[in-house]
Each structure stands twice: as C-alpha cells, then as structure tokens.
C-alpha cells in the first residue's frame, strides 16, 4: 500500500537531481582525483606495485614520529587554550558588559578573516630575540642574552595558535551566552549565589554545547595549521603539514610527502567527523567549518 512518498513537485529538476552532476564532477576531478593519486603514490612509491613498505619506512623515521607528536601536542594544547581564553573573554563581554563591548567582540571576530601567519609575524616583533619585550627587559635589567625565548619552542606556536583560533570559540560562545536570560542570573543572585557559583551552575552548562563545538573545530584547524609553524620557523618544531611541505618542495621526495599527507588527512577527517558529530549532537547545523 505504502509505495510512494509524497513527491514534492520540484519542476526545476529535470530527471530528479541531474543538476547535481556538474558540481560533483568538478569536485571529483579537482579534489577527489588528486586525493586518490596521493594515496596511490603513498602506496606505490611511484612504481607499479602497491605495498605498505614505503609507508612503513616513512613512519619509522624519527622525524615523522616527532612531527606527529608535535602536531597532536600543539593541537590539544592550543585548543585547550582557546577554550579557556574564549570562555574568559566571552564571560566578561557578556556578563560584565561595558560600553563598547559589542565593538570589541566584532574586532576580535575580524581575526577570523585575517591570515593566520599575521600573528606569527607579530609575535616575532614582540617576543622575538630582538623583539619589544626582550629589548625592554634587556634595557631595564641589563641582561646579556634575551631572557624571553619561548617563541622558538612549541610554546611559541601554541600561543600564536591560541590567539588566532580563540575567535572560533568566542563566536558560538557569545551566541550561546546571549540566550541566557538576565533574569535567570538575577534570580540566582537574589537567592544568594555568588559569581563563581553562577558561572559554574548556570553559565557553564549553557555554554557547554558551544564550547564542545568550538573546541572540536579548533582541534581540526590547529592540526591543519601551516602558516604559523612555517613563519615562526623554529628548528625543533615540525608538524605534519610542515613536513609534507618540506619533503615535497625542499627535498623533492614526493612519496614520503604523500605518505605523510595521507596520515595527516586521515587524522583531519577523523577530527572532522568528531566535529560533525558534536554539531549534530548539540544541535544547530553550523555552516561548514566557520
């Protein structure tokens, strides 16, 4: 009895859905075909036979293992930092508002549109060995060597990434906080709850979905980050994207680059799946990655 569903008559569809073919073809040729070739090169090493030998060889190198570890370390630490910084800023902007708070929020939001290496460049001016901070400290206290040198370690990268990706946490968090009724906080206050209790019991739960979504997005973006690591250019700090660039462009070793790229892509897609799941769970179909 129940064969056919209500067919919404979409007269714009010649044979149902034929219009989707051109964009799928374009994406297939320009994106999925290259991805497939990366995978093939990773397995074949440019030859005919497919094997896991090339991949295993690359994965056994110390360089790869260090890069993988740095990538994960930097991503996790940066995302945690983004969550913390984003939460504090959102808290103040939303609940201890001052004239101009809205403009401040918009100002921070514009950083989403700016290139990420901007921060790395700025950091070299501020915290670099010849930067403002070191200059001031050396002048004031007569240090022989620059006293601040975290910039050229993992910490420099992490700090720059926290700065760059905090807006991605801030944006959903401000939206979530704007949904909290003022009356709710006032009632809690009138019942004797202090600011900390209010933050813990009312604001944090309300912001949790946004924190989860923003946090998983940050994980994805920081794993993929390239510009900051390249610009800071610290010797010891190599991540997977940087290693791909290094192998392919500097050393011309495409097979190794492809192996690393495949692993990097797998990691990214895993995180993207996590992000989509979080979004689906907490509701709110966010548009893409931003």
């Amino acid at each position, binding site marked *: *009895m*129940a064969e056919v*569903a*209500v067919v919404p008559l979409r007269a714009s569809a010649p044979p149902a859905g034929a219009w989707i073919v051109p964009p799928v073809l374009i994406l297939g040729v320009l994106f999925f075909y290259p991805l497939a070739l990366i995978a093939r090169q990773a397995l074949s090493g440019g030859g005919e036979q497919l094997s896991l030998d090339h991949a295993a060889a690359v994965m056994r190198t110390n360089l790869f293992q260090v890069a993988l570890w740095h990538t994960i370390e930097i991503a996790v630490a940066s995302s945690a930092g983004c969550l913390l910084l984003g939460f504090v800023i959102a808290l103040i902007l939303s609940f201890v508002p001052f004239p101009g708070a809205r403009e401040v929020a918009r100002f921070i939001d514009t950083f989403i549109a700016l290139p990420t290496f901007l921060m790395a460049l700025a950091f070299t001016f501020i915290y670099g060995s010849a930067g403002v901070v070191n200059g001031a400290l050396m002048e004031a206290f007569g240090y022989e060597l620059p006293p601040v040198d975290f910039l050229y370690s993992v910490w420099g990268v992490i700090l720059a990434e926290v700065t760059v990706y905090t807006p991605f946490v801030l944006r959903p968090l401000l939206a979530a906080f704007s949904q909290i009724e003022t009356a709710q906080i006032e009632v809690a206050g009138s019942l004797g709850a202090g600011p900390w209790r209010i933050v813990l019991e009312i604001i944090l739960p309300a912001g949790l979905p946004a924190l989860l979504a923003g946090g998983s997005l940050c994980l994805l973006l920081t794993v993929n980050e390239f510009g900051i690591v390249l610009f800071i250019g610290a010797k010891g700090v190599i991540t997977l994207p940087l290693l791909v660039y290094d192998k392919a462009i500097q050393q011309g070793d495409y097979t190794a680059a492809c192996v690393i790229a495949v692993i990097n892509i797998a990691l990214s897609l895993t995180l993207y799946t996590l992000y989509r799941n979080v979004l689906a769970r907490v509701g709110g179909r966010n548009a893409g990655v931003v």
Partner: protein
Amino acid sequence: MSTGMATRGIVTNGAVTPAPRSPAPASAAGAGISFDAVTVAYRGAIVLESFSLEVRHGEIMALIGPSGSGKTTALRAVAGFVRPLRGRVRIGGVDCTDQPPYARGIGMVVQNYALFPHMRVARNVAFGLRARKAPRDLIAQRVEECLRLVGMAEFKNRYPRELSGGQQQRVAIARALAVKPAVLLLDEPLSALDAQIRRAMVEELAALHRNLPDLTVLYVTHDQSEALTLADRIAVMRDGRLVSLGASQALYRHPPNRFTAEFLGRANLLPVRLESSPVANGHLDVSFAGTRLRISTDGASTVGASTVGASTDGAVRSGNGSLVCIRPHALHLAEGDSGNRLSGTVASVQWQGDHHAITLDCHGIALRMVMKPLREPPERGARLDVAFSPDDATLIGEGTEGHG
C-alpha cells in the same frame, strides 16, 4: 468598494492568461474543483484516503478538521505541491493532476502569508503577472485594482516588514487575486492573527467574496467559527477521510455524526432508544432514561447535510446505540407542559457577561445550555425543567463516522 474584480467579465480579455508556451490553465472564469478518489501517502503513511469532493463554482468550501486530518494535504494536492498516489484532481473540469503548480491558474494564501520580503507591496502583488509576462500597463492597472479591493492602495510602496499582520494578510490576498485565479486556496489564512483582528478579517473575507461571486474558494481551517461564518458548505475531515459534508448551517444544526457534532461546536449528546418506527410523518419518537422525546427527521434531509459511509437512516434503522444531538442554545426553560421536556439538577451556573451558561445533571448526563442573562439564575442543586423543539434535535448513530 469600487472594483473591477467584481465583474468577472474582464477575466477573458486574455491579458492575464499565461504566456503562450505555458500549458493552458484551467479556464479562469467559473471553475470548480473536483477531487476524484484522491489518495496521498507520505513516507509510507496514507494521509489522504480516497478523498472525493466537488467544490462548486463560486462557493466557499471550508475544509475543516483537527491537525493531521488531511485537510492541508487536500489543499496542497489542488495547488500541485503533493502528487496523489491515486485519483485525479480537476480544476474547472480540466484534469490537472500532472500539471506543475505554475500551470494551474490558482491563487494561494498561506498561514504566514509568505510575502516576498525583498519586494515592496506593489511588486508583491505584481509578482504573478510578471511571472506570466503580462504587459506592463496591465500589471500597473491590476495591482492598483487589487490593492484597492483589499483597501491597501496607499501602502503600495511599503515593504512587508513595515506592515501589521492584518495588512500583510490583505496584501497576500491581493497578490493571489491579481492573477485572476480560477480558484483561491486559503490555508489557515487567519491563524497567525490575534482574535480581534481575526474576527474583522472574517468579515472582510466575506465582503470580498460578495464582490467576487464567481471566485471559487477552498478554505482550510481548524477553527469552526471561521468556517461557519464564511463557508457556504463545510467538509469535515478526520484521519485523511471526509467525515461529513453539508451546507454550513445544516451541518451545524443537524450533524450527521458524533464527530461532526462535537467538532463544529458544543453539543449535548443523549443516548436514546428508538420508540416509533422510523420516519413516520416526518418525525420519530425516542426515549431517553424513560422520557419520551420527539424528533423531527426532516431537518437533515431537507438541508442536505450528509455523512460519508453511513446515512442518518442507517443510524436510525440500527435503533440501538443512537444519540440525540441538541445544541446548548436550543435548550430553553420549559413553560407549560408541551413538547420535549428534560428535567435535571443544576450542577453549575456561570454568568459570562452576555449570557448565562448552566449545566444540568440529567440522569448522569451533563446537559449544557446557554441563555440570555437571567435576572434570577437558578441555585445550584435546584431542579430545573428544560425543553427543546423537535426541529432542533438530530438523531445520530454512535458509529456513523465510518470508523473509530
């Protein structure tokens, strides 16, 4: 209201018919709608089952029912937004089941009006005509005409967001009328308005139709008072089926089944037993808790209310399990000893400003009546005799909805 709309003579001047390459729409003038055993399924569930209904040219037909009854699906089948699994839909006698919506020559107003927010009022009203590539001067003339018809001429340069709900509603109607539709489909057009404006809009819709007597209107609503006020005939729906169909007043006064009786307004339903042979001299006798009551049997048949599946006669023949339906306002305080009398204990008395509502406990049945404000309302617990005319009562079979 001076209007060119009222005279449908200009309908055939050809200017409004779609561009030549479009499939010929149903003739604009004087079209009815006919559903011929239309079945619609949605995700495997039947939402409209073998639905047949004739909407006559020039009448307002209200499709009424609770949510999920299939009334909106029926309207959308006319508009062409759902494709029936089986059955045919005709507009003005032309089978349009397989036509796309834009070729059907309809006008439609939806619950939230869906005025295009990026167009000014005049542009909204002109939309259908522009879509049909009507000449520019004709568009200007029709827009003017239709806006005047709904009293919105001075708002033509506003954006929809600058209008109140009632004003948006009027623009939506003008937009639907501008294309001189064969039929006008109204899908809960008043439900987004607040009660006061809604009453005023019902008046205006009625006046509008008086000006456009040739316009066939299919009006979907869940509000029985809108349907009763506006519609020439009402079709009551439930669970995807037609439950009853009839002229509004007849259907209200002589509902053919329990569902219709209760859906169209408050109803006192007394379980009765048949005492006389059916349809003797236009009336029959029944007994309720030992009291003999006389009911006219002319009412239902003369005004044309009908039920689907089982007739009043069927209910009557079955004898047992019958109900008598009496509307609250049909009951009055008994005077003398003539006619149908019921006697009960006053359970509650409510003064509601313009009337008194009294509930009687009558052999365990709550009997509700409304009457003009009483100077001395009865006390709670007092005995009260009430009476009703045989013409105001209807015999209903318990199970005459066909199911349930």
